[in-house]
Protein backbone atom coordinates (compact mmCIF):
# COMPACT_ATOMS: atom_id res chain seq x y z
CA UNK A 1 0.00 0.00 0.00
CA UNK A 2 3.04 2.27 0.24
CA UNK A 3 3.45 1.83 -3.51
CA UNK A 4 -0.22 2.68 -3.90
CA UNK A 5 0.52 6.16 -2.51
CA UNK A 6 3.32 6.77 -4.99
CA UNK A 7 1.14 5.57 -7.87
CA UNK A 8 -1.45 8.19 -7.00
CA UNK A 9 1.03 11.01 -7.59
CA UNK A 10 2.09 9.52 -10.90
CA UNK A 11 -1.37 8.92 -12.34
CA UNK A 12 -2.66 12.38 -11.46
CA UNK A 13 -0.79 13.74 -14.46
CA UNK A 14 -1.82 10.98 -16.88
CA UNK A 15 -4.01 11.68 -19.87
CA UNK A 16 -5.76 8.58 -21.16
CA UNK A 17 -6.26 7.97 -24.88
CA UNK A 18 -9.38 5.94 -24.19
CA UNK A 19 -11.62 5.41 -21.16
CA UNK A 20 -13.66 2.29 -20.41
CA UNK A 21 -16.47 2.55 -17.88
CA UNK A 22 -16.83 -0.58 -15.73
CA UNK A 23 -18.72 1.02 -12.85
CA UNK A 24 -21.26 -1.45 -11.52
CA UNK A 25 -19.55 -4.42 -13.13
CA UNK A 26 -17.93 -7.26 -11.24
CA UNK A 27 -15.21 -9.79 -11.95
CA UNK A 28 -14.43 -10.91 -14.60
CA UNK A 29 -16.14 -8.16 -16.63
CA UNK A 30 -13.68 -5.28 -15.95
CA UNK A 31 -10.69 -7.26 -17.19
CA UNK A 32 -12.67 -8.80 -20.05
CA UNK A 33 -13.63 -5.28 -21.16
CA UNK A 34 -10.05 -4.11 -20.64
CA UNK A 35 -8.69 -6.85 -22.87
CA UNK A 36 -11.27 -6.00 -25.54
CA UNK A 37 -10.61 -2.25 -25.37
CA UNK A 38 -6.81 -2.51 -25.38
CA UNK A 39 -7.08 -4.11 -28.79
CA UNK A 40 -8.47 -0.81 -30.10
CA UNK A 41 -5.43 1.17 -28.95
CA UNK A 42 -2.13 1.78 -30.70
CA UNK A 43 1.10 0.71 -29.05
CA UNK A 44 2.11 3.01 -26.20
CA UNK A 45 -1.35 4.54 -25.80
CA UNK A 46 -2.96 4.69 -22.37
CA UNK A 47 -6.27 3.12 -21.37
CA UNK A 48 -8.13 4.34 -18.30
CA UNK A 49 -10.44 1.84 -16.66
CA UNK A 50 -13.01 3.16 -14.20
CA UNK A 51 -14.48 0.56 -11.85
CA UNK A 52 -16.01 0.30 -8.40
CA UNK A 53 -15.35 -3.40 -7.75
CA UNK A 54 -12.40 -3.40 -5.38
CA UNK A 55 -11.12 -6.60 -6.99
CA UNK A 56 -9.64 -4.47 -9.75
CA UNK A 57 -6.92 -3.19 -7.39
CA UNK A 58 -5.35 -6.64 -7.48
CA UNK A 59 -6.78 -7.92 -10.76
CA UNK A 60 -5.44 -5.23 -13.07
CA UNK A 61 -1.77 -5.57 -12.01
CA UNK A 62 -2.26 -9.37 -12.36
CA UNK A 63 -3.78 -8.94 -15.82
CA UNK A 64 -0.88 -6.70 -16.84
CA UNK A 65 1.74 -9.10 -15.49
CA UNK A 66 0.22 -11.86 -17.60
CA UNK A 67 -0.41 -9.93 -20.81
CA UNK A 68 2.71 -7.75 -20.83
CA UNK A 69 0.88 -4.43 -20.86
CA UNK A 70 2.23 -1.82 -18.47
CA UNK A 71 0.39 -1.09 -15.24
CA UNK A 72 0.86 2.64 -14.70
CA UNK A 73 -1.08 2.97 -11.47
CA UNK A 74 -4.46 3.69 -10.00
CA UNK A 75 -6.18 6.19 -7.82
CA UNK A 76 -9.40 6.05 -5.86
CA UNK A 77 -11.86 8.92 -6.22
CA UNK A 78 -15.15 8.71 -4.29
CA UNK A 79 -15.22 4.92 -4.25
CA UNK A 80 -14.31 4.60 -7.92
CA UNK A 81 -10.97 3.25 -9.02
CA UNK A 82 -9.29 4.89 -11.98
CA UNK A 83 -6.75 2.47 -13.36
CA UNK A 84 -4.20 3.34 -16.04
CA UNK A 85 -2.66 0.81 -18.40
CA UNK A 86 -0.21 1.47 -21.24
CA UNK A 87 -0.51 -0.82 -24.24
CA UNK A 88 2.71 -2.72 -24.71
CA UNK A 89 4.95 -2.05 -27.68
CA UNK A 90 5.58 -4.65 -30.35
Amino acid at each position, binding site marked *: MIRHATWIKEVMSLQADRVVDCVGLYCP*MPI*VKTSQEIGELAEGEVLEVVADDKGIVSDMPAWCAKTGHEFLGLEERDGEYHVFVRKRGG
Partner: protein
Amino acid sequence: MSDREEVATIVVFSGELDRALAAFNIATAAASMGMEVTMFFTFWGLNVIRKERGSGGGKTFLQRMLGLLNRGGAARLPLSRLHMLGGGKAAMKVLMREFRMPSLGEMISLAGELGVRFIACTTSMALMGLTEEDFIPEVDEFAGAATYVEKASRSAINLFI
Protein backbone atom coordinates in the same frame (compact mmCIF):
# COMPACT_ATOMS: atom_id res chain seq x y z
CA MET B 1 6.58 -14.57 -20.77
CA SER B 2 3.69 -12.62 -22.22
CA ASP B 3 4.39 -13.69 -25.79
CA ARG B 4 4.01 -17.38 -25.04
CA GLU B 5 0.41 -18.42 -25.17
CA GLU B 6 -0.29 -20.69 -22.23
CA VAL B 7 -3.00 -23.27 -22.06
CA ALA B 8 -5.80 -23.55 -19.48
CA THR B 9 -8.18 -26.50 -19.34
CA ILE B 10 -11.35 -26.82 -17.29
CA VAL B 11 -13.37 -30.01 -16.90
CA VAL B 12 -17.00 -29.07 -16.36
CA PHE B 13 -18.52 -32.13 -14.71
CA SER B 14 -21.35 -30.40 -12.83
CA GLY B 15 -24.67 -29.35 -14.29
CA GLU B 16 -25.37 -26.78 -11.61
CA LEU B 17 -25.72 -23.05 -12.19
CA ASP B 18 -23.31 -21.84 -9.50
CA ARG B 19 -20.54 -24.24 -10.48
CA ALA B 20 -21.00 -23.49 -14.18
CA LEU B 21 -20.80 -19.74 -13.47
CA ALA B 22 -17.53 -20.25 -11.59
CA ALA B 23 -16.15 -22.27 -14.50
CA PHE B 24 -17.10 -19.58 -17.03
CA ASN B 25 -15.79 -16.76 -14.83
CA ILE B 26 -12.37 -18.36 -14.74
CA ALA B 27 -12.49 -19.35 -18.42
CA THR B 28 -13.32 -15.82 -19.61
CA ALA B 29 -10.72 -14.28 -17.28
CA ALA B 30 -8.02 -16.67 -18.56
CA ALA B 31 -9.00 -15.97 -22.17
CA SER B 32 -8.79 -12.23 -21.44
CA MET B 33 -5.28 -12.79 -20.15
CA GLY B 34 -4.13 -14.26 -23.44
CA MET B 35 -4.44 -17.92 -22.53
CA GLU B 36 -5.73 -20.61 -24.85
CA VAL B 37 -8.71 -21.98 -22.92
CA THR B 38 -10.48 -25.30 -23.42
CA MET B 39 -13.57 -26.38 -21.50
CA PHE B 40 -14.29 -30.09 -21.55
CA PHE B 41 -17.96 -30.79 -20.72
CA THR B 42 -18.69 -34.23 -19.40
CA PHE B 43 -21.51 -36.07 -17.63
CA TRP B 44 -23.93 -33.59 -15.99
CA GLY B 45 -21.75 -30.79 -17.36
CA LEU B 46 -23.24 -31.55 -20.78
CA ASN B 47 -26.46 -29.92 -19.55
CA VAL B 48 -24.66 -26.55 -19.46
CA ILE B 49 -24.13 -26.54 -23.23
CA ARG B 50 -27.34 -28.26 -24.30
CA LYS B 51 -29.98 -26.43 -26.29
CA GLU B 52 -33.07 -25.79 -24.25
CA ARG B 53 -35.19 -27.45 -26.88
CA GLY B 54 -32.82 -30.28 -27.59
CA SER B 55 -34.44 -33.51 -28.61
CA GLY B 56 -33.08 -35.41 -25.61
CA GLY B 57 -34.55 -38.31 -27.55
CA GLY B 58 -32.39 -41.26 -26.77
CA LYS B 59 -32.70 -44.71 -28.21
CA THR B 60 -33.64 -46.81 -25.23
CA PHE B 61 -36.46 -46.58 -22.72
CA LEU B 62 -34.03 -45.70 -19.92
CA GLN B 63 -32.42 -42.94 -21.99
CA ARG B 64 -35.82 -41.46 -22.73
CA MET B 65 -36.70 -41.59 -19.01
CA LEU B 66 -33.40 -39.90 -18.18
CA GLY B 67 -34.09 -37.31 -20.87
CA LEU B 68 -37.41 -36.42 -19.24
CA LEU B 69 -35.80 -35.98 -15.83
CA ASN B 70 -32.58 -34.39 -17.01
CA ARG B 71 -33.51 -31.57 -19.35
CA GLY B 72 -30.53 -29.39 -20.19
CA GLY B 73 -29.98 -25.78 -21.12
CA ALA B 74 -28.11 -22.99 -19.36
CA ALA B 75 -31.31 -21.33 -18.13
CA ARG B 76 -32.62 -24.55 -16.60
CA LEU B 77 -29.72 -25.48 -14.34
CA PRO B 78 -30.43 -25.74 -10.60
CA LEU B 79 -28.29 -24.32 -7.81
CA SER B 80 -26.00 -26.82 -6.07
CA ARG B 81 -27.26 -25.58 -2.70
CA LEU B 82 -30.44 -23.76 -1.62
CA HIS B 83 -32.17 -24.47 -4.91
CA MET B 84 -35.42 -24.86 -2.92
CA LEU B 85 -37.54 -26.10 -5.82
CA GLY B 86 -36.46 -23.12 -7.88
CA GLY B 87 -37.13 -20.45 -5.24
CA GLY B 88 -33.50 -20.08 -4.26
CA LYS B 89 -32.49 -19.93 -7.88
CA ALA B 90 -35.11 -17.29 -8.67
CA ALA B 91 -33.77 -15.15 -5.82
CA MET B 92 -30.23 -15.64 -7.12
CA LYS B 93 -31.28 -14.52 -10.60
CA VAL B 94 -32.86 -11.35 -9.21
CA LEU B 95 -29.70 -10.60 -7.21
CA MET B 96 -27.47 -11.20 -10.21
CA ARG B 97 -29.55 -8.84 -12.33
CA GLU B 98 -29.52 -6.23 -9.56
CA PHE B 99 -25.72 -6.35 -9.43
CA ARG B 100 -25.47 -6.33 -13.25
CA MET B 101 -23.81 -9.71 -13.35
CA PRO B 102 -24.08 -11.50 -16.67
CA SER B 103 -26.37 -14.52 -16.81
CA LEU B 104 -24.86 -17.93 -17.54
CA GLY B 105 -26.18 -17.68 -21.10
CA GLU B 106 -24.40 -14.36 -21.56
CA MET B 107 -21.19 -15.79 -20.06
CA ILE B 108 -21.34 -18.69 -22.53
CA SER B 109 -21.70 -16.29 -25.49
CA LEU B 110 -18.89 -14.13 -24.13
CA ALA B 111 -16.61 -17.16 -23.73
CA GLY B 112 -17.35 -18.11 -27.33
CA GLU B 113 -16.49 -14.59 -28.51
CA LEU B 114 -13.22 -14.69 -26.56
CA GLY B 115 -12.20 -17.87 -28.35
CA VAL B 116 -12.73 -20.36 -25.54
CA ARG B 117 -13.01 -23.85 -27.03
CA PHE B 118 -15.94 -26.04 -26.00
CA ILE B 119 -15.53 -29.81 -26.17
CA ALA B 120 -18.42 -32.19 -25.48
CA CYS B 121 -17.57 -35.65 -24.17
CA THR B 122 -18.82 -38.26 -26.64
CA THR B 123 -19.00 -41.06 -24.07
CA SER B 124 -21.39 -39.09 -21.86
CA MET B 125 -23.37 -38.13 -24.96
CA ALA B 126 -23.79 -41.78 -25.90
CA LEU B 127 -24.79 -42.72 -22.36
CA MET B 128 -27.45 -40.03 -22.21
CA GLY B 129 -28.64 -40.54 -25.78
CA LEU B 130 -27.59 -37.05 -26.92
CA THR B 131 -26.53 -36.14 -30.45
CA GLU B 132 -24.51 -33.24 -31.84
CA GLU B 133 -27.78 -31.47 -32.70
CA ASP B 134 -28.65 -31.28 -28.99
CA PHE B 135 -25.85 -28.78 -28.34
CA ILE B 136 -25.48 -25.02 -28.69
CA PRO B 137 -23.42 -23.77 -31.68
CA GLU B 138 -20.50 -22.69 -29.47
CA VAL B 139 -19.53 -26.35 -29.08
CA ASP B 140 -16.75 -26.83 -31.60
CA GLU B 141 -15.56 -30.34 -30.90
CA PHE B 142 -16.94 -33.71 -29.89
CA ALA B 143 -14.17 -35.82 -28.43
CA GLY B 144 -12.93 -38.15 -25.75
CA ALA B 145 -10.57 -38.20 -22.79
CA ALA B 146 -7.38 -38.40 -24.84
CA THR B 147 -8.13 -35.00 -26.38
CA TYR B 148 -8.56 -33.56 -22.91
CA VAL B 149 -5.48 -35.32 -21.47
CA GLU B 150 -3.29 -34.05 -24.30
CA LYS B 151 -4.35 -30.45 -23.61
CA ALA B 152 -4.28 -30.88 -19.84
CA SER B 153 -0.75 -32.32 -19.98
CA ARG B 154 0.55 -28.99 -21.29
CA SER B 155 -1.75 -26.75 -19.26
CA ALA B 156 -0.62 -24.16 -16.76
CA ILE B 157 -4.11 -24.29 -15.24
CA ASN B 158 -6.24 -27.41 -15.03
CA LEU B 159 -9.48 -27.43 -13.07
CA PHE B 160 -12.26 -29.92 -12.40
CA ILE B 161 -15.51 -28.21 -11.55
